[in-house]
């Protein structure tokens, strides 16, 4: 069993983690309403950003490595100066808790999904909503931009998995198959495959163009709460309710499982851009930082 490089702690459950593009810093967001910035190599806490009035459920860095954007249950997105720890902007619009968040690779656009059943797409440069996507009939649980940033996939507590055109806000189609809420979603790095995890205990691979199911991965205990492809797209990582990290190849064949690496649900998997590190954020109040060489040597 590999050991994490660092175990980082929040006073309360940790919902999200994101590496700075240069890989030097990790940002983590917690139900304690704060964002913490950590030095990746030493595991030392560098800053705590305060201002949100409820849990922080999403984070993304800007390419300059100096600013980041956060999403919170307090219905707002906020932009931060990560060097100074100061808040630069607050973006409001949702009428209820934000539950999930995603951003394009260049952080030009972000998307937030809420218990108000709406998805908002934000232009982070103008700090404004550019699209409001309606159609879900319950809270949004997962969002993912395609690698090109032109499509957005949404997973809902209404048991639906939908695909949207980002520029027009039109729904392009749905992926039918999950029996129960859809908890999480991600795109493969080439954008051809969409992956979703559902309350039915399955992880499903879909053809993102045809909406056809390609493969159903069973073997989860409970449901998957987070999905992530390692940079390069050769491995798919899943994690969720049982605190176990599972690794599959691109075709969905299981490669490894690391049992109970956390004591509670793993809410997010985040890779550093160079693929060297993996961060796992959990409801057990910790973030574990893993060296991918340790994980993949097993």
């Amino acid at each position: 069993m590999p050991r994490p490089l660092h175990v980082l702690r929040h006073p309360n459950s940790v919902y999200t983690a994101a590496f700075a593009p240069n890989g030097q810093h990790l940002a983590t967001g917690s139900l304690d309403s704060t964002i913490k910035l950590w030095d990746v190599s030493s595991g030392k806490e560098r800053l705590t950003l305060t201002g949100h009035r409820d849990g922080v459920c999403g984070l993304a860095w800007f390419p300059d490595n100096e600013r980041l954007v956060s999403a919170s249950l307090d219905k707002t997105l906020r932009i931060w100066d990560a060097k100074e720890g100061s808040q630069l902007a607050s973006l409001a619009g949702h009428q209820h808790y934000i539950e999930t968040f995603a951003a394009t690779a260049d952080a030009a656009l972000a998307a937030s999904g809420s218990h108000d059943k709406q998805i908002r797409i934000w232009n982070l440069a103008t700090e404004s909503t550019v699209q409001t996507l309606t159609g879900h009939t319950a809270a949004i649980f997962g969002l993912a931009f395609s690698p090109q940033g032109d499509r957005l996939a949404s997973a809902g507590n209404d048991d639906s998995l939908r695909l949207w055109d980002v520029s027009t806000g039109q729904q392009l189609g749905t992926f039918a198959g999950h029996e129960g809420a859809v908890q999480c979603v991600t795109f493969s790095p080439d954008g051809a495959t969409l992956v979703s995890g559902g309350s039915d205990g399955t992880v499903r691979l879909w053809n993102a163009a045809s909406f056809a199911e390609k493969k159903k991965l069973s073997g989860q205990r409970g449901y998957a709460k987070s999905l992530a492809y390692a940079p390069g797209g050769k491995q798919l990582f899943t994690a969720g309710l049982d605190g176990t990290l599972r690794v599959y190849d691109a075709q969905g064949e299981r490669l490894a499982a690391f049992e109970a690496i956390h004591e509670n649900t793993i809410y997010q998997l985040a890779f550093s851009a160079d693929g060297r590190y993996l961060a796992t954020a959990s409801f057990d109040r910790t973030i574990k930082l893993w060296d991918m060489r340790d994980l993949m040597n097993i």
Partner: protein
Amino acid sequence: MLTFCDGRGRLDRRDFLKIGSLGLGGLSLPQILRAEQQSGQSRPHKAVIMIFLSGGPPHQDMFDLKMNAPAEYRGEFQPISTCLPGVQICEHMPRLSQMMDKLVTIRTLVGSEGRHAGFQCLTGRASRGTAPAGGWPSLGSVVSKLQGPAAAGTPPFISLTPNMKSRGWSDPGSPGYTGRAHAPFTPNADGGSNLTLDRISLARLTSRRSLMHDLDGLRRDAETSGAVAGMDAYYQQAFEILTSSRLANALNLDLEDDRVRDRYGRGDNVPAGYGDAGPLMNEYFLAARRLVEAGARVVTLSYGRWDWHGRPHGTNFENARDHLPRFDQGLTALIEDLEQRGMLDDVSVVVWGEFGRTPKINKNGGRDHWPRVGCALLAGGGIRTGQVIGSTTELGEDPAERPVHFQEIFATLYHNLGIDVHSTTLTDLSGRPQFLVDHDRYGPLSEVI
């Protein structure tokens, strides 16, 4: 903030009168001393430790798992066997499973008014409806009024509950018609400001070194000013109480063996859950034992946040996986510790919340409020433990047999304290006698006494 020194750091007689009227658990110090003189204080005293699970714990995920119910009711947890034959509890409380012979598990707590507050657990009464002049008093205030202090320097009623955003949960216990003299001493509320001398905060009070330094200075000032010589004997003794270290030592957990602190699980002092409730501070359990040892008769505390409506603040089950192992560790440590010190037969421990939770899991993975039935635990106090009282219907919606009312628990606690609820009355502020519970309907649990 109370002040004991003038602007030049000196004491005068008026300052000492302030010392004399300083509420320690509401009682003025001379009252404490007089009561103590009248009652004698060397015999072991009976006490109650009340652990309030603020928010309403899920009975069906802890002590009454419904494994035959449909999935939308059943929940995620598996039952485990206990040391009581045929009795199972949640898998996340393995230590308690081996201590069930020292507990009374009540699966059918009824009578909740359905309000998010500690009031009913503290007083046994609903906050709505007719109340006597002055209001209903909490258990600790009643005991303070009836029995007074058990030991010099320690208030009879202490609440370890800190301030929280949710005021209903941070209620330390109203004195009601017993009067403010019987309000709890609250060292964790307001930063301990109700025991803050001019230069001596509670934080410093718990540091013996700084305490002695400050108090030595205070005493020198007093002697120099001649203030002490002019006081009556009680006030001099009152000053001695303030300068004694009994209470400060009881609150100073650094004086406790590290192995004991580790056994309790220490805990975390940040607000649990959404940030509006009490911390998961297992050391409150340890502090409660130390305070009882030092003479407290009733110690109450709020523990965690059990109001688990579901996402996005975590599902009922994620929160339970977070809280239950810590609760399991802290509560078993307390019971074990009390037993090892020979205190368990004298100290009643009660654990409960304001209501149960909905049998059906909601769309966000939570359980909502369910006043129709809840659960409670009793330990110690000389009662017959090792039994489960009551059972619920198939889905855990209602009692199927032996509903137990809040006031029956109160009557049992009073019984354990040596107070007869059928004959004891206190006078409310209009001069009317008031029984401690509705004794014509509720008495001590016959199964345990």
